[in-house]
């Protein structure tokens, strides 16, 4: 089993529309939405949820004021400013480190595990799909990303799927690091803007840092020809395969509005040929 993770650094560069299109081109894939913060792939693939699981992760402190004697030890030790002068814990500031719980001599601190979200195993029209929803304002997104990826891999292994296509989160931090480790390759979707290039360079560095081979796709390449040229040069210098460039095509957004993949919405759209050519190169590169 091989896993391809689609990331970008910068958000909104077209990751999810790309994953939906690839879901249709790939042979018998397992699909995985690892953007657990703002998952969108389900809006195109309309999965039917088969299994729903609670995601328990991390702890949050609360102080029982009946037991508290106001000694102030917790206030003194908390480094996150989460405890008020009158010993109320703000759950948004609580890091879940347990220091107050551990040192309270009155045993006045409760420290229960959090229900941080849910993850799902579903059926979609292109194959099994594993996805999740992190609770609002929750932490531990990295752990939830690992959870959905592990389950996608498990389904692939036990049912003979050779490929997992994963929709990754934006950025370069915790959830992205959790999304790319051990993947066969990452497809970096960028766009020819100074922002797109800046964030792509950082994410290439991240992929190299974690020894996952990167590939680059230039989306909306005709928006700025000279920056597209710069991206190609960068890719060449860094020896990152540039596996495709997709023209700006209103059909991409329209397909999303209709909850369809690009190929379902308009198989004649200019972007279709470009995505097919890209997929051929991605498959070769993964071999």
């Amino acid at each position, binding site marked *: 089993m091989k896993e391809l993770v689609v990331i970008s650094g910068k*958000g*909104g560069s077209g990751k999810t529309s790309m994953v939906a299109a690839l879901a249709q081109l790939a042979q018998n894939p397992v699909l995985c939405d690892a953007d657990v913060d703002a998952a969108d792939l389900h809006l195109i693939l309309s999965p039917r949820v088969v299994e729903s699981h609670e995601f328990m992760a991390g702890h949050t402190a609360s102080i029982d004021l009946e037991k508290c004697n106001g000694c102030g030890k917790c206030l003194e030790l908390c480094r996150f400013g989460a405890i008020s002068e009158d010993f109320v814990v703000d759950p948004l500031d609580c890091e879940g480190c347990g220091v107050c719980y*551990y040192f309270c001599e009155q045993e006045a601190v409760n420290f229960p595990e959090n229900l941080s979200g849910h993850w799902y195993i579903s059926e979609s029209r292109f194959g099994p799909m594993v996805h999740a929803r992190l609770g609002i304002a929750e932490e531990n997104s*990295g752990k939830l990303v690992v959870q959905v990826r592990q389950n996608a891999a498990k389904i692939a292994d036990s049912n003979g799927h050779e490929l997992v296509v994963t929709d990754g989160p934006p*950025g370069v931090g915790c959830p992205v690091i959790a999304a790319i480790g051990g993947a066969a390759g990452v497809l970096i979707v960028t766009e020819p803007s100074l922002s797109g290039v800046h*964030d792509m360079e950082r994410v290439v560095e991240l992929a190299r*840092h974690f020894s996952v081979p990167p590939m680059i796709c230039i989306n909306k390449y005709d928006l700025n020809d000279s920056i597209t040229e710069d991206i190609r040069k960068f890719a060449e210098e860094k020896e990152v395969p540039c596996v495709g460039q997709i023209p700006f095509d209103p059909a991409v957004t329209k397909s*999303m509005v209709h909850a369809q993949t690009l190929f379902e919405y308009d198989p004649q759209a200019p972007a279709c040929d470009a995505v097919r050519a890209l997929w051929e190169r991605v498959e070769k590169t993964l071999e």
Partner: protein
Amino acid sequence: MKYRNFKKMIISVASGKGGTGKTTVATSLALSIGGAQLLDCDVEAPNSHLFVRPVFEGEDTVTMPVPRVDEDKCTLCGECEAICQFNAIVTIADTVMTFPELCHGCGGCQAACPAGAIDEGKRTIGTIQHGRSNGLDFVHGRIRIGEAMAPPLIRQVRSRINLDVVAVIDAPPGTSCPVIAAIQDTDFVVLVTEPTPFGLNDLELAVETVKILKIPSGIIINRSDIGDGRVAEYAARENIPVLMEIPYDRKIAEAYSRGEPVVQAFPQWRRRFAGLYEEIEKLVAGRK
């Protein structure tokens, strides 16, 4: 400059979905206020500097405390491992191992160690740069590649807020801890979205986030003519003001690609962004 006597607001610009135009709005808003401060808290993918082009005056390394164990003093009692919620310190056979990249810097192990064998080292999580451009005071954070934890760096960027001027914060996308760190305790959140199913889905999540934080908000619909009317309907239903609509215009997209702020590339937008600030000011004043 007539607003200088008013309490100086902190306005954050956020969105659930990435790439909806946070940086476009944050930079043009900050440039329209006059003498404002812009803090780019999207430390994983900071882009505001590409538009504002500040002359950087300084750079500071930001670190987090991590445990350092004196093996001579350590009795291998395991108290440090017992308190650590993040598996960042463990006793294996006859040694204590630390995993600095997992450490949240809570200081629990140090406080728990009965032998006094733990003191503090440092791990670099990123850098903060500051500078000026066109009368704008600019600060941003850049997370070190390979570092997972953005919130402590975001909090350090925010500690540079100049309370004497209006501050605009460019927040990261999403709904989890980095966003909370960036927008918590600000006076107003501008939620930038686009009129598509992804835009709407992620806007709903962002609205839930600002509700939890109890911060007033308004919506900007970017590329307002590319999708459908569901975002506008949602805003009306939720009673959240739509502050501005920016139609799709290839010229705006091209100016964006070159790193030109909307208000500089298209002077006709200056008045609209100045008006946006006045509108936000009224909404915040109306709540007090």
